């Protein structure tokens, strides 16, 4: 192993997340390399500093009066009847429903864009770049789905119902956009719609996960 290899692996080595074989290789290198041993020492010292940081810090002033004022402005006993994010989610769902129902793309190719941009679609949205972008969203969706699934029990039934319904709508919208794009590849508006819908799905999953 070179020093560059060891420095790349040093985080995982110190965190204990290397495979046994890799761990031994790093250990062997550290045994004979003073420079890398010094990096390891500094990293462990840094983590020791982090562990020793006080868990409590006093704010410079008492924040309760300002908090109490904001609670008073909300009104007596004012609590939202729905989770704070539900309003935005339901609005997003309404927009997505409208999008889904408008996706009746004809089989014939569309005319090139002649709007303010005045450029053909294929210059900016080639298939490989779209695939790469969509791949990123799909990966994020997969990770968030896994996180949400593992914590579903901590959400109320009402919240779960809203989340599942909105995910169903978005998934359906994604399917519709993909079908339309398959018939009209390179359509800039559809490409934007696809990526935008992916973003909405990731956002909904992210917010739902944060509620758990």
């Amino acid at each position, binding site marked *: 192993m070179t020093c560059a290899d060891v420095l790349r692996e040093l*985080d995982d080595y110190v965190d204990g997340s290397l495979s046994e074989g890799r761990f031994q290789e790093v250990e062997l290198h550290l045994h004979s390399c003073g420079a890398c041993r010094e*990096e390891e020492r*500094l*990293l462990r*010292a*840094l*983590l020791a*500093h*982090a562990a*020793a*940081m*006080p*868990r*409590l*810090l*006093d*704010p*410079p*002033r008492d*924040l*309760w009066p*300002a*908090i*109490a004022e*904001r*609670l008073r402005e*909300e009104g*007596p*006993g004012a*609590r*939202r009847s729905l*989770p*704070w994010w539900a309003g935005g989610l339901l609005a997003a769902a309404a927009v997505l429903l409208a999008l889904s129902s408008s996706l009746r793309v004809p089989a014939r190719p569309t005319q090139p864009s002649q709007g303010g941009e005045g450029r053909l679609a294929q210059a900016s949205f080639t298939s490989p770049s779209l695939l790469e972008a969509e791949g*990123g969203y799909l*990966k*994020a969706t997969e*990770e*968030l789905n896994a*996180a949400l699934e*593992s*914590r579903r029990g*901590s959400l*109320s039934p009402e*919240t779960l119902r809203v989340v599942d319904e909105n995910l169903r709508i978005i998934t359906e919208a994604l399917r519709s956009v993909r079908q339309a794009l398959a018939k009209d590849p390179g359509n800039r508006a559809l490409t934007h719609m696809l990526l935008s819908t992916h973003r909405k799905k*990731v*956002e909904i999953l*992210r917010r739902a*996960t*944060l*509620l758990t």
Partner: protein
Amino acid sequence: MRPAGTLAIVDIEGGVIEPRADEDRPGRERELVARARAGDRDAFEELYRENVGRVYALCYRLAGEASLAEELTQDVFVRAWQKLASFRGESAFSSWLYPLTVNVALSERRSRRRRTARILATEDPTAFEVGVPPAGTEVGFDIERAIAELPPGARAVFVLHDVEGYRHGEIAALTGVATGTSKAQLHRARRLLREVLQR
């Protein structure tokens, strides 16, 4: 050694945070939560006083500046009041409050990024404000300042991973970035901090 008065650790098993109630959690906290849920602001103030130190510490380290940390701390408790009905009481109040704190702090960072269109990914520490560190941090003064000077993305991951103990999968879910990005940001943060500590 955990300082007296701090709350129970959070167990992490199989990548899922499983909060457990502090074994010595007084029934008083349960009573306070029940009263606050019923609208008793005095009870909520007591919950505030018992948790503000931890919440402010987290906000300060994620924000990197004291004035923003104060705003975020206020936002956290207002949000907690609004969402108190969703706290089931099966774990310590702090186990519910701290992930909410992380969410508020990171959401504010994203909002500021949209509003001000600042370039956040920079190696130049002078591009970021560094507020006066709070009192009582002399022991960890250098690392507090060094963390505050990190680029925001690296700072958030370092605080969540190395100070708060979150795993990369959890950080990815909280921040909306990929796990690989979280690891890369941690690597960057640790490298920058080692350079500071070496001076």
